[in-house]
Every structure is written in structure tokens, then in C-alpha cells.
């Protein structure tokens, strides 16, 4: 594509050049169609089929997953705790609530501070409300000792809000909203990009002060939930704009675009090239220049001071072919775009 971009004439175009450019444009379109339609896009977007056997390892109804003590009153079970990542994932404007449940007596293994490991029986839930309608609650359940042993499932709320039912194949425009519920196999596109599989519950994401009753890094150890004591928090470097931009890219892009992705036996929906690394690491927060983001973004994917000439801005400013994120979003995050534009412009 860069080749074709260079062929674009400047100034008054020569008719011959226009003809060549037009032919190249047509050829590019034809190639694109052929590549997409013949499955050559598998490297990027094709998932493995939904694992029916794995789906059978979690209950069919949300009310049976252990989230609620009393579903009718939305009273949570005693061992369920809420938490809030400091850099949330953009979900097309949906409001989200998150909870975690650790098995009694278990601890989070924080030996690798960037890849926490969880005991079998650990569960995470995330509830999505779109336009005032509670649409779905997603479950991540650890069903074995290995890093791979997670089961993902979306539960689609019924019309009267009494319960949610497992939807392993997802749903489009669920409950009359514009919200799409992902199929279980699509969860791999983000969660299998990190060894931990858990993305929003990490040392960096929990380092911000939390609201009353919510889990934060500061109180994890105090409550005896970590295998070894964690005495510090991890502050993302930079001024307010830089911190926000680094955090935004970490939460929205870093789970795929990072250079420490675990190997995968099968397709996981999205396999980007790994020249980019947008995942923040606890050991690389001394300065902004110390972060993988600054070391890999400039000047190939963003040009300091020139947001309009930065591919990273262009990608998140559109939807459709070539947009980012390539899964899980149909609506542009205008605040996120403005944030990244401001960040690049101020550099």
C-alpha cells in the first residue's frame, strides 16, 4: 500500500501517471478482494471454531455461576469483589461493572508482576449496560492449573432481567441495542495475547486508588490475596496527557500489540505483526522513553507533532477495513482519538 501511496501524483498530474495510478488502484482493489475472499486474511481475523466441550464446563445460566447470592435483588455472593481498572477498555460507550472471585484459601501468584497467575476456580465477571439496557455479563473461569485453562462465556440477559443465558455464539444488536455480544471463541482475540489471559486485573491496572469496597493493588496483600507481599504501586510515567495516552494504548491495543505474546496452537482471531509493543510493563516505567510504547511507536506508526500523519491515529479514527481495534468495536472512541491526537501533537 505504501508503494501505491508513493505513486499518487502531486501537483498537476500527468495523464500517463493518472492512468498508472488508476490501474494500480484497481489492481489493489482486486487483490484486496481476492485476498479477503480466498481466506488469505486468516492470519488476522479468523478464529478457531467455538469449543463446545469447553463451553459445557460453565453453567448455562449466569445465576448459577456464583456471582450472586440473590439474583432477584442483585446481592453479590460473599466472596465476590468488585474492581475497576484505571485504564478501561473502550466498549462502544457501554457502562461496565467488574467482579472477581478467588477460591477460598487461594492466592494470586504475583512472582511475574506482569503476568499474574490465578488458581483453578478463579472467576471474573464483567457486566455491560448499553443505552440503559443491561445486555450481557461475561465470565472468565479458570478451570485448570495451566495458563491456557480459561473458559470464556457471554451470558445474554433475558428481556425481563431475571437472568442471563449462556450465548456461546454471541448475538448481534442484543436486546434491541447496538451492542454485539462476542462469541466465546472471539474472546481469544484479546485474552490470549497475554500469558495471564486476565487483562484488566493487573499490577498496573489496579495501581490507582479505588472506590470503597473495590479491590486495588494497595489492599490485595493486606487482605492476604497475593502469594507474596506487594508493597508498592506502579505509576505510569509522564504528564497527564502522556499517562492517559500510554494507559489508553495499553488497555485498548497492548493485549494484541505486544512482543511477549504467548505462542498459540491454533488461530486466535487476530495475529498482528509485532513491530509495535503497546503493553506497559512494571519494570519499564522509569520514564516515558523507557516504555515499549515510545520505543516502538515512533516514528513508524506515529510522527511526533503530527497527528494527521500518524497511522495510529488514522487507524482508530475509522471503522471498517483497516480500522483499530479490528474486533469488538463499531463506534469510534472520540475521546480516545482526541487524547491520542493531543498526545502526539504535544510531543
Amino acid at each position, binding site marked *: 500500500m505504501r508503494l501505491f501511496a508513493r505513486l499518487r501524483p502531486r501537483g498537476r498530474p500527468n495523464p500517463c501517471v493518472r492512468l498508472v495510478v488508476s490501474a494500480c488502484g484497481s489492481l489493489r482493489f482486486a487483490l484486496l478482494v481476492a485476498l479477503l*475472499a480466498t481466506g488469505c486474511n486468516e492470519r488476522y481475523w479468523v*478464529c478457531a471454531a*467455538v469449543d463446545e466441550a469447553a463451553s459445557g464446563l460453565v453453567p448455562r445460566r449466569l445465576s448459577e455461576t456464583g456471582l450472586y447470592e440473590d439474583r432477584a435483588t442483585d446481592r453479590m455472593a460473599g466472596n465476590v469483589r468488585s474492581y475497576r481498572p484505571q485504564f478501561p477498555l473502550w466498549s462502544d460507550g457501554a457502562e461496565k461493572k467488574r467482579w472477581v472471585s478467588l477460591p477460598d484459601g487461594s492466592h494470586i501468584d504475583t512472582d511475574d508482576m506482569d503476568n499474574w497467575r490465578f488458581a483453578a476456580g478463579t472467576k471474573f465477571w464483567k457486566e455491560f449496560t448499553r443505552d440503559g439496557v443491561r445486555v450481557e455479563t461475561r465470565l472468565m473461569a479458570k478451570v485448570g492449573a495451566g495458563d491456557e485453562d480459561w473458559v470464556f462465556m457471554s451470558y445474554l440477559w433475558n428481556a425481563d432481567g431475571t437472568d442471563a443465558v449462556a450465548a456461546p455464539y454471541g448475538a448481534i444488536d442484543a436486546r434491541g441495542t447496538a451492542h454485539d455480544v462476542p462469541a466465546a471463541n472471539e474472546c481469544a482475540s484479546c485474552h490470549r495475547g497475554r500469558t495471564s489471559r486476565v487483562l484488566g486485573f493487573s499490577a498496573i491496572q489496579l495501581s490507582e486508588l479505588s472506590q470503597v469496597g473495590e479491590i486495588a493493588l494497595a489492599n490485595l496483600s493486606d487482605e492476604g490475596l497475593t502469594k507474596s507481599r506487594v508493597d508498592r504501586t506502579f505509576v505510569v510515567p509522564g504528564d497527564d496527557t502522556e499517562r492517559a495516552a500510554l494507559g489508553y494504548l495499553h488497555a485498548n491495543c497492548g493485549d494484541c500489540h505486544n512482543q511477549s505474546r504467548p505462542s498459540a496452537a491454533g488461530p486466535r482471531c487476530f495475529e498482528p505483526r509485532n513491530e509495535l509493543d503497546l503493553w506497559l510493563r512494571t519494570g519499564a516505567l522509569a520514564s516515558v522513553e523507557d516504555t515499549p510504547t515510545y520505543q516502538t511507536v515512533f516514528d513508524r506508526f506515529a510522527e511526533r507533532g503530527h497527528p494527521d500523519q500518524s497511522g495510529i491515529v488514522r487507524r482508530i479514527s475509522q471503522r471498517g477495513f483497516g480500522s483499530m481495534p479490528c*474486533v469488538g468495536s463499531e463506534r469510534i472512541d472520540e475521546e480516545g482519538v482526541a487524547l491520542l491526537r493531543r498526545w502526539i501533537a504535544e510531543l
Partner: protein
Amino acid sequence: MQRRSFVLPLVWSLFATLSRAESPAIDEPAAPEGGPLAAPSETRAELSSLLGFASSPFFVPEFPEVSGQVLLLRTAVARRIAPSVWLGLTMPLALTSIRQPAGSYVDEAAWGNPALAIQHDWSGFTEAGVGFLSVARASLGLPLTEHGPRASQMANRALALADALQALREPSPYTPGVASLTLAYRVDLASGPWLFGPGLSVPLLVRLGEAELPSTQTRAIGLRPRADLRALYYPKRWFGVGAEGSLTFDVVRVTEPIRPDDARQRVQPSLRPEIVFDGRRFRVVLSCLVPIGGPVRGSAGCGADAALRF
């Protein structure tokens, strides 16, 4: 001489139009008097392909729409059983990458309904010297496709994409759980370098299985007739360019789309520009098929049909 120049396109035109429908591959009729086909073939085989993007309304609340990439393949063989009568078999296959709710894709392959067909043709020249070829056909679609599980509807979704990619022109191969009887008639006229003519296809679908779809969404009988008008220009005897316009009307659907807006749309126009290479023993057609508005707007595909007769 002029008569002879259009006999070959006329003969092949019969194959080009009707083999795309629910029929098996067909061959030339008995050669018109004075025509060049001294050795009419007894058997023919065909491989058709169509590749592209498709989107379509769908039938269940979880999936009110389906979209994805599709490669349609169809093999067909036919055998002459009487001077003007052919018997044949068609087998369609849809290879799809179905778009999932979050935007990724998952592959699904689905066989379509095979069809058995019998065809009668008649050709000749009018007193004004215009060649004509008239073809009547009846085909029986066998209800062998599968729906896939109720939760996923994967096979159903793949077949809906296949149906959309070919602009809803042929419901019988791509409607799961139905047997079908299709009656079709076409006449082509040839004058100088021009070949043109109308066609009509009337498929009657009888639902035998429901894939656990809500009963309000299904009917026992479906009817989706199609009218075609085609014109081809042959600057050379072996080379033609042209287009076929079609209008499909969903009179009665066996399965209603879940969205009311989709259910209200019943007419599907489409256009198929094509380039034709005719030989005595082979034919290759390169074409694109584009729905114009209608329920499956946004779909588009291009492909090639290759046929041999021997």
C-alpha cells in the same frame, strides 16, 4: 454463413443461463438445420465458481443479519437421454468465512441441496432468419442440507450467505430443510452478432425441517419466482460480452427475517455483466453478480464458469 455464426453462441447460451439455475448442466439441442454442429455431444460437465462478499437478513433474534466472505462452487453433469432431452445432477458447495458478532471470522463449509433435472429443448429459425432456442426444464431439489445446531445456526448462516451472494436468484440449493420443484422456461433469439431473450424460473419450496426456529418465522411453503432478460453481443464468433438483468420476487418465504424492515423487502433486482468465450468443446464465462438494492444489497461477487462437452 451469417446463420452459422450465431449457432454456437446460441447453443452455449442455453448452458450459460440455465446451468446457473437449479438445473444440471445442459448441452446443445439438436443442431438447427444447416447449423455447424455436426457431432452433438452426449455428456457435459461443468464447474462454476462465484467469489465475493455477502450480507443477508437472518432468522433468529441473536442473529438478525449475517455477513461474510463466500466461495460458491457448483459441479454439474448432464447426459442426453433422447434427441432433445437431458437428465442431469447438480451439487452446490458453499465455503464461507462468517463474520462473528465482535468482527472476527469463523470458517464454515456447507453443502447445498443437490438437484436432479430433466430438460427439453427446441431450436430452429424463424422465417425471418432469426435463430431461436427454447428450453423448458423441471428440477427436483433434494432436502439434504443441514441446519446446524440451534444455538449456532452455522450451516444456516453459511447457506444464507450463499443465497445472498447469488442475489437470491436460486433459493432451492441454499435453503436448508426444504424439498423443491422448479419449473423454468427460457427462449433465446439470435440475430447477427446479437443474442438476447427472456427467462422465467418458478421454484416451489416445501419445508420439511425447521431447525428449531420459532414457529412464527417459518412456513410450510415458499415461492420465489425470478424473471431474467439477457443480451449478449458477439464481435467474434468465439467471444461475447453482455449482461443479464434479473428480478426476484419473494412471494412467500419459508423463513421470515427477524427484522420487520427486512421482512418488508420482497423484490431483489440484480445485474450480471459477463464475458463469454465459446469453443466447440468448451465454454468459459467470466462474470460478476451485483444485487441492486434489495435485501442483500452490499453483496457482490465475481466468478468463472467452465464447461466441457463431449
